[in-house]
Structure formats: structure tokens, C-alpha cells
């Protein structure tokens, strides 16, 4: 726990690393100064894009002692203002699951190549990022913990599947190889409480280590302090749950 007489320092900058199919992705890396060793985190950004909230959240994780990287999962759509890029990806119907998983695996490999890690890497995502984080944690070996904040479409019906999303992420649950923390608002419409129930049942069925926290009076995106969805009490509690979970599994 931080004390006011402690030294703390952070370093943050844009980096690049190879992602899916070797394409070079730009990413925001923030880390505590010093040799560590530090636990490490990959952040999978949400539908609104590789935006200021995710820059600030990358910094937040670093401030809590994690070497943290947030790749720009939308870079293949071109460059510009984050919202314009995200709007383009929205118009294209999102990014392919295979691509997202490849990019997040590349981010993990990049972190593991750094000399100041403690060997443990977690992954965190909100919204579509929660869904991407779940896919990555199920399909890629090497993550030690996953935080899924209100990831919609983890539970998908056959009519929702297509070339970009060929398999419902729930189908990969048997391969989940690390503990999962789920944070959900009970007023959310994607995922609905019923879909979260299905997700939880699948985790139980496969004897996965999980911890779900479901908040009344909160909907989708209740950590986002810059939009009306923000719920102060639930967000403060949710963040405490996030750092307690990661402290337990990444140390």
C-alpha cells in the first residue's frame, strides 16, 4: 500500500510490437521505474477505441505497480483521432476474433520479453475488450489472470456467428487456463444478467476458478467517469475487487 513517504516513479511511452501475422502494432506502455520484478498486465480496449480512458487506465495500472501495455487493436483501420478510427471499425462490424487474439498474444509475448517482469501476466478488458480478453485467456497459454468487465457477446447464439466471429467465446471456456474475475452491472443489456448466468454456469461446469461481482444500480460501462453510465460507489468497489484479485494471482 502506498505511503506518503515512499518514492514512486513511472515511465510511459508509445511502443510497437508484432501482433497477429507479424503486423507491427502501436501500443501505450506504462511501468513503474526500477528493476522490479513487477507483475504485468495487457489491457484490451473497448469499442470506443484506443482512447484517453484507456491511456489513463494504463497509467492507473502502472501506478498500482504493474508493467502495463494497451495495444491499439484498431490500427489496421488507419490512423487519426481515436474516435474516428473506432467509428470506422464500428462501420466495418468490428475486428475479427482471430486478429484480436493474435494481437493480445503478441502483447503478452512482448511483456514477457522485458527484463523487469515477475513472470506473471494478467489481461484486463472492458466491453468488447472484456470479450477479447476472455478469448485470449481461453485460447492463449501464458496468462495468469483475466479480468472481464461487462464483456458482451461472450455468450453468442448461432445466428450471431459469422466469418469474423465464428465461435461463441463461451465454447472456449473448457480451455480457460487462469482464474477469472468478472465485473458486471445488473442493468446491462449486453451482457444481460441471464447471459452472465450462462457464463457462470459454464465456468462451474468446467471447474474453473472464478469470482463474479454483479452490481445493482449499474449498467454497461459503469467505471467510465466521463459518461453518464458512471456509478461512483460501484466503480470504487469494482476497482478494489480488480486490484485485490490481481494482487492475489499475479504476485
Amino acid at each position, binding site marked *: 500500500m502506498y505511503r506518503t513517504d515512499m518514492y514512486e516513479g513511472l515511465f510511459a511511452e508509445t511502443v510497437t510490437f508484432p501482433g497477429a501475422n507479424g503486423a507491427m502494432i502501436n501500443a501505450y506502455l506504462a511501468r513503474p521505474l526500477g528493476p522490479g520484478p513487477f507483475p504485468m498486465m495487457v489491457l484490451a480496449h473497448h469499442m470506443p477505441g484506443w482512447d484517453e480512458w484507456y491511456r489513463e487506465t494504463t497509467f492507473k495500472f502502472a501506478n498500482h505497480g504493474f508493467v502495463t501495455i494497451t495495444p491499439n487493436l484498431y490500427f489496421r483501420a488507419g490512423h*487519426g483521432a481515436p474516435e474516428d478510427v473506432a*467509428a470506422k471499425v*464500428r462501420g466495418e462490424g*468490428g475486428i475479427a476474433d482471430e486478429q484480436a487474439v493474435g494481437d493480445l498474444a503478441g502483447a503478452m509475448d512482448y511483456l514477457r520479453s522485458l527484463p523487469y517482469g515477475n513472470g506473471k501476466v494478467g489481461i484486463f478488458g472492458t466491453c468488447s475488450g472484456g470479450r477479447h480478453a476472455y478469448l485470449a485467456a481461453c485460447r492463449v497459454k501464458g496468462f495468469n489472470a483475466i479480468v472481464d468487465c461487462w464483456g*458482451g457477446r461472450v455468450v453468442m447464439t448461432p445466428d450471431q456467428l459469422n466469418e469474423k466471429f465464428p465461435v461463441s467465446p463461451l465454447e472456449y471456456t473448457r480451455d480457460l487456463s487462469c482464474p477469472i474475475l468478472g465485473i458486471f452491472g445488473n442493468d446491462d443489456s449486453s451482457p444481460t444478467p441471464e447471459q452472465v448466468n450462462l457464463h457462470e454456469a459454464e465456468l462451474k461446469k468446467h471447474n474453473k476458478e472464478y469470482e463474479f461481482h454483479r452490481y445493482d444500480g449499474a449498467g454497461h460501462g459503469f467505471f467510465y467517469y466521463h*459518461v453518464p453510465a458512471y456509478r461512483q460507489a460501484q466503480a470504487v468497489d469494482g476497482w478494489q475487487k480488480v486490484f485485490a484479485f490481481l494482487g492475489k494471482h499475479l504476485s
Partner: protein
Amino acid sequence: MCTMIVEKIRVDGSGKGTEGWFTLEGANISYDHPFNAPFEHALNIDFVNESMGPSARVAVELSADAARELVKTILAVLDEAEAGGHIRDSH
């Protein structure tokens, strides 16, 4: 994307973006999380020219009610223009 509700159409016309007027090639219409409007979901219209890059975009985000009213009003204006003989060619 959270709702995955999006349709793309081709459009002819011009849009005024942050750097002035540009030729429009299409419009992406979605019902999904807005970037700015104070709703969980909005009817989002992005008037774009994708060959010019992501920044060639004129965006609006509307409530569902406002969007329905807009659709009705657009059609009413077009009907009036047609009745007045102002729409000679069909584009």
C-alpha cells in the same frame, strides 16, 4: 462492438468535417454506444469518405426518438420538394 447493429450505404453528396467540405462516399448507420451523446446507445450516423482515411467523417449521435423524427421529417421534406417539381433527377 456491443450491439453489432450497423448498416452501410453509399451516398452522393458533401459533408463538412473538421477540415472543411469533402465528398461523401457512404454513410455508416449504427445503433450502438455513442462517443459523446449522453445515452447508453444512440442512433449514430457517420457520413464518410473512407478512401480519405478515418478523419473524413461527419458524425451525429441521436436518441432513438430523435432519429425516428428525423427520418419522418426527411421524407416529408423530400415529398414537398418533389411535389414542387424541385426533384427533377433521381440520384
